[in-house]
């Protein structure tokens, strides 16, 4: 399902996802080159999260195939809709967890190397959560938790980022800032982002391509090039 050695970051061919006996969309085909930002939009329950779960290897498709440019799970970062943070661990440790896959287990058994902690802290400062470093995640706000999840993926530094509504708990200013950081990662480091978004203005401002899921159109999806 996840295969390496393709020229695009993500290639989807004839994909169909069925949830609860209902087909979300059919015959979905598109390609996303490296360094591009794809926004997935559409009403609630239409299959946006299911598509991301499928591309992330956590949900089996009904028909079709998809390929990613990397088969290494460390190169695929996911910002989950429900964040999946360790609530009893500090914000800093949660961010550091982004790189667990790149460290042998014995190096992370008691603590993380000082240089790694510093790098994680710098990312947190960039996202405006530096002062929360030692606070347990359970004691910070929903928006701060969301930024912690974003910081974890940025620290992981994958080549492909799947983000499921990464700004749902953030105000307009912070949403723009976070998406700006993701956009910058695409432009300067050639990373690829597939991001579920609801705000049309943010889509126009940051995305290269919009994949709209809509049950009223043929096959339940449409693709629009923004820039």
């Amino acid at each position: 399902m996840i295969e390496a050695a393709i020229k695009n970051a993500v290639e989807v061919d004839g994909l169909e996802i069925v949830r609860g006996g209902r087909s979300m969309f059919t015959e979905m085909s598109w390609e996303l080159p490296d360094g591009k930002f794809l926004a997935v939009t559409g009403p609630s329950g239409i299959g946006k999260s299911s598509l991301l779960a499928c591309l992330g290897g956590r949900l089996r498709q009904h028909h079709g195939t998809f390929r990613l440019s990397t088969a290494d799970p460390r190169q695929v970062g996911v910002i989950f809709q429900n964040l999946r943070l360790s609530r009893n661990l500090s914000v800093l440790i949660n961010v550091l967890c982004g790189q667990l896959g790149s460290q042998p287990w014995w190096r992370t058994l008691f603590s993380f190397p000082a240089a790694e902690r510093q790098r994680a802290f710098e990312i947190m400062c960039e996202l405006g959560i530096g002062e929360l470093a030692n606070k347990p995640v359970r004691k910070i706000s929903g928006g701060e938790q969301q930024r912690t999840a974003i910081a974890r993926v940025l620290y992981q530094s994958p080549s492909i980022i799947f983000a499921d509504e990464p700004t749902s708990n953030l105000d307009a200013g912070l949403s723009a800032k976070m998406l700006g950081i993701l956009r910058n990662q695409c432009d300067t480091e050639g990373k690829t982002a597939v991001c579920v978004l609801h705000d049309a203005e943010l889509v126009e401002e940051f995305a290269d391509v919009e994949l709209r899921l809509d049950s009223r159109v043929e096959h339940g999806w449409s693709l629009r090039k923004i820039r």
Partner: protein
Amino acid sequence: MPRLSWRERFTAFRATLLLFAIAVIISLPAMTGSGRDLNYWENFMRFAGKFFPPDLSVTPTVLVALGETIQIAVMATFFAAIIALPLAVAGSQNIAPRWMNLVTRMILNVIRTLPSLIWALLAVAVVGPNPLAGVIGLTFYSIGYLGKFYSDAFESIDAEVSDGLRASGANAVQSFQYGMLPQVKPLILSHVLWMLEYNIRSAAIIGYVGAGGIGLLLHTYQEFGHWDRFSTVLLFILILVTTLDLFGEWLRGKILRDD
């Protein structure tokens, strides 16, 4: 007008009450005494009178034995808290394979079946009558309980957190350490604290079978009929257990509230 059938009226609560009432009736023969014409109240007052006033001259001896009791309980809880962890992981359905769950849970059940006094008795038979026997006996007993408690805690966690870490390349040890363990840590601490309280109470009695601690003193005073000294020991146990109860309740509340 439709009427409820007897099945609908016969709730689980009513069924339990009925079963309990039947059990009480069947158990009535347990109330049979020796058959002799005894004055229970007079017997009680005569025996209780021997406890007063408590002989406080034995306080230093009692305090030393009490210290040993606490030491036995602390060491047993320490060993059990560590040994129970891998057993709990093996016994958790959401972590280990099914066959391993069954084997581990069976072992933990067997351990819990024997009371702490029996474990202490077995340990005395192996290492002789000393505090080490108390530590070994209570360690085994505590493993049975902590293993079960930890296991239940692990089964109640949100597996999505560790799954998320696995998805980003973390290995099994890392996803356990950073995804599962932090979720159960407050519960584990609370259970260990409860076990420590329980072990201090148990350690006060296992001396009866020679496993050290204040129970040995109780046994000696009972054998020689020194009931005034016996009551001094009971008094100190009461003070210790009450203090421990209050402190434990406060600390457990704090640990769980902070969660």
